[in-house]
C-alpha cells in the first residue's frame, strides 16, 4: 500500500540521500530531493561514471543510502531488510541493462519467465498461463516468430536480445521499469524501434519508466528529462 507521506502518485522519492562506496571518502550520490510521479517516463542523462548505476542500485534496493530516505512505489527502501528489498525488487521493478541481460543457458521464453520465478506477486498478476503471458510480452515487442523463439539466446541479434530483456522486465506488470543504457549496443534503426516498443509497453502496463543514458539524443519522447549533474551534487563536483 502506498505510504501517505509519499503521496498516492509518487513512484520514486529521494530525500536528502547520501551514499559513498565503502573505503572512499567522497560521496558518490548526494541528492537533496527527487520526486517522480507514477506513470512518468523519465530520462536521466549523465556521463559514464557519474553515479548513474549507483543511483539505480539505490532505487532498486541493492544498495542502501548512508543517510536520507529512498521511497519506491510507497515503500521506504531503507527501512526494509535485505531480504525484503530483494523481494520488493523482484515484485515491483523490471531491469534492463546495457547488454548481456540474458542467461545463456535458458531459452528465450524461459529467460522472460525468470521474472516470475523469483516473484510470486508477478506470477499472481499474470493469473494463469505464465508461458502464454511471456509469449504475449515477447509478441508485443515484436518477437513472435516461433523459429526465433526456439533459438538459443546467443543466436539472437543484440537488438532482439534487448527486446527479450524488455519483455522480462515488463512481465507481470511491475510498477517500475529501470533501463540502464539499454540501447547503447544497438544501431540507429534498432534503437528507434526499441524505444518505441518500450514506450508503448510501459504505457500499456502503466509502469513508470526510469531510463538512464549518457546520450542526450535519446531524450525525445520522454515526459521529463533530468541532468544527473543537476540533482546529484556529488556528481557535479566530480
Amino acid at each position, binding site marked *: 500500500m502506498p505510504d501517505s507521506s509519499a503521496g498516492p502518485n509518487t513512484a520514486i522519492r529521494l530525500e536528502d540521500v547520501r551514499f559513498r562506496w565503502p573505503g572512499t571518502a567522497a560521496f558518490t550520490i548526494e541528492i537533496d530531493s527527487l520526486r517522480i510521479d507514477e506513470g512518468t517516463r523519465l530520462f536521466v542523462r549523465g556521463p559514464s561514471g557519474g553515479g548513474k548505476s549507483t543511483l539505480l542500485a539505490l532505487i*532498486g534496493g*541493492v544498495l542502501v543510502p548512508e543517510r536520507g530516505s529512498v521511497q519506491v512505489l510507497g515503500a521506504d527502501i531503507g527501512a526494509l531488510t535485505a531480504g525484503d528489498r530483494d523481494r520488493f525488487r523482484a515484485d515491483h521493478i523490471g*531491469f534492463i*541493462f546495457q547488454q*548481456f541481460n540474458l*542467461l545463456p*543457458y535458458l531459452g528465450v521464453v524461459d529467460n522472460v519467465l525468470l521474472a516470475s*520465478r*523469483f516473484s510470486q506477486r508477478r506470477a499472481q498478476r499474470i493469473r494463469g498461463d505464465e508461458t502464454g503471458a511471456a509469449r504475449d510480452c515477447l509478441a508485443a515487442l515484436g518477437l513472435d516468430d516461433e523459429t526465433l523463439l526456439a533459438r538459443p539466446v546467443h543466436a539472437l541479434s543484440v537488438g532482439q536480445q534487448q527486446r527479450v530483456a524488455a519483455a522480462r522486465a515488463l512481465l507481470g506488470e511491475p510498477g517500475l521499469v529501470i533501463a540502464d543504457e539499454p540501447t547503447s549496443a544497438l544501431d540507429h534503426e534498432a534503437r528507434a524501434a526499441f524505444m518505441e516498443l518500450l514506450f508503448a509497453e510501459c504505457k500499456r502496463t502503466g509502469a513508470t519508466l526510469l531510463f538512464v543514458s549518457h546520450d542526450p539524443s535519446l531524450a525525445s519522447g520522454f515526459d521529463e528529462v533530468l541532468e544527473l549533474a543537476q540533482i546529484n551534487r556529488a556528481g557535479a563536483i566530480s
Partner: protein
Amino acid sequence: MRPLLGLALKSLWNRRLTVGLAVLALTVSVSLLLGVEQVRKAARASFTQTISGTDLIVGARSGPVQLLLYSVFHIGHATNQVSWESYREIASSGLVAWTVPIALGDSHRGYRVMGTTKDLFEHYRYARTREIQFAQGEAFSDVFHAVVGAEVAERLDYEVGREIVVSHGVAQTSFLDHDDKPFMVTGVLERTGTPLDRTVLVTLEGIEAIHVDWQQGRPPAPGARVPPESVRQMNLEPASITAFLVGLESRAATFRLQRAINDYSQEPLTAVLPGVALSELWAVIGTVEQALLAISACVVVAGLIGMVAMLLTSLSERRREMAILRAIGARPHHVFLLFVVEAAAIGILAALGGALLVFGGLWLLSEPVSQITGVNFGLTMPGVSEGLIVALVIGSSTCAGVIPAWKAYRTALADGLAVRL
C-alpha cells in the same frame, strides 16, 4: 527452491564439457573406491570361506593362526605331528561325525602334496556350502592314486591317467624324488579358489608307502628299497599325521570338544574353530585392504578438489549471470544455493555413474572372472558400506560446493547489479 534446481541443471548442461570432465574425474574416483570396496569384500568372503562346514581343525600345539596357515593354506610347516593314536581316539569320540586326516611334507614340482582320505571329497566345503567337484575322473581307489587341483592340472597340463612322481620335502627344487613309487592321476578338481587348487592330493597310505623304506629322513640304501608291489602287502597305517579336520554331530559340542582336545593329556594338541582363526588371520592381512581403501578415498578427495577448482574458475565468467539473477530479485543466498546445488548434482551424477560402472561391470564380468580366478565377485551384493560410500561422496561434494558458493555469495553481494571488473 524449485526454480534454482532447474537453473542449476540447465547451467550445468550449458557448461557440459568442463562439468562433464569434472563429473568424469569424480566418477572414476568413485568407481575406484567402490571397486576396491567390492574387491575387499569379495576377497574377504572368498578368504574366510576357504574352509567351511568344518567345526574344528586339530594339530600339534601351536597358535591358531599358525595351525590354520599350515593345515589349510599350506604356508609354513608344522612344528610337530599328531600321533595316529591320538587322532584315532579323538575321531572315535561320540561327538565326532567325521574326520579328515591331513599329512603334509612332500611336494610335486613346487606344489604341495597332501595325504588324506576320500572323506575329504565328501566333507570339505568352501564358500559356505560348495562341495568339491571333479572336473575329470574320480577320487582315489588305490594306494598310488592321486587327484590334482585345478591350477596344478592347468599349469602342468595334467590329465587323468598321467603318472607323477612325488618329491621329498617342500623345496621348489627337490633332489630327492620318490621316483621308485609313482602315482597315477585319477581325478582333476574343479577350480575352488582355495589352496586345494594348488595341491596334489594323494592317499594317506600312499604317503606312508613312499616313506616306508626311508630311515630317519634319509633315502633307503639301494639294496634296501621296497618295490611298490610288496609295499601294498605291508601295514600302511601312518605313525602320525600333520593335522585333521573334525565335523561334529552337533555344533553345540564344539567348545566342549575344543577344550577337551586342548587339555588332552596324552599329547599337546591345539583345536581351533576355522572361522575364528580365519578372522584372526584376516585382521592381519586386512590392513592392506584398509590402505587401499584409504588411497581410493584420497583419489575421491582429488576429484572433489578438481570439481571445486572448476566451479571457482567458472565464477569470473558467471558474474554477469549472478548480476542478472540479483536484478530479477534473487537473493544472495539463492546464488549460494545455486552453486551448492550444482556441486551436489555433480556429486550425485558421479556417485551414480561410479556405482553403475562398478556394479554393471561386475554384473557383466563376475562370471568370467569367477571362472578364471575362483574369486566370487557376484556373491557380494551392494550393501551398507557401498550405500555409505555413495552417500559420503554426494555429501562431501555438496560440502565442497560451499567453497565456490561462498565466493559467489560474496561476489553477488559486492557486485550488486553492475559487474565491476
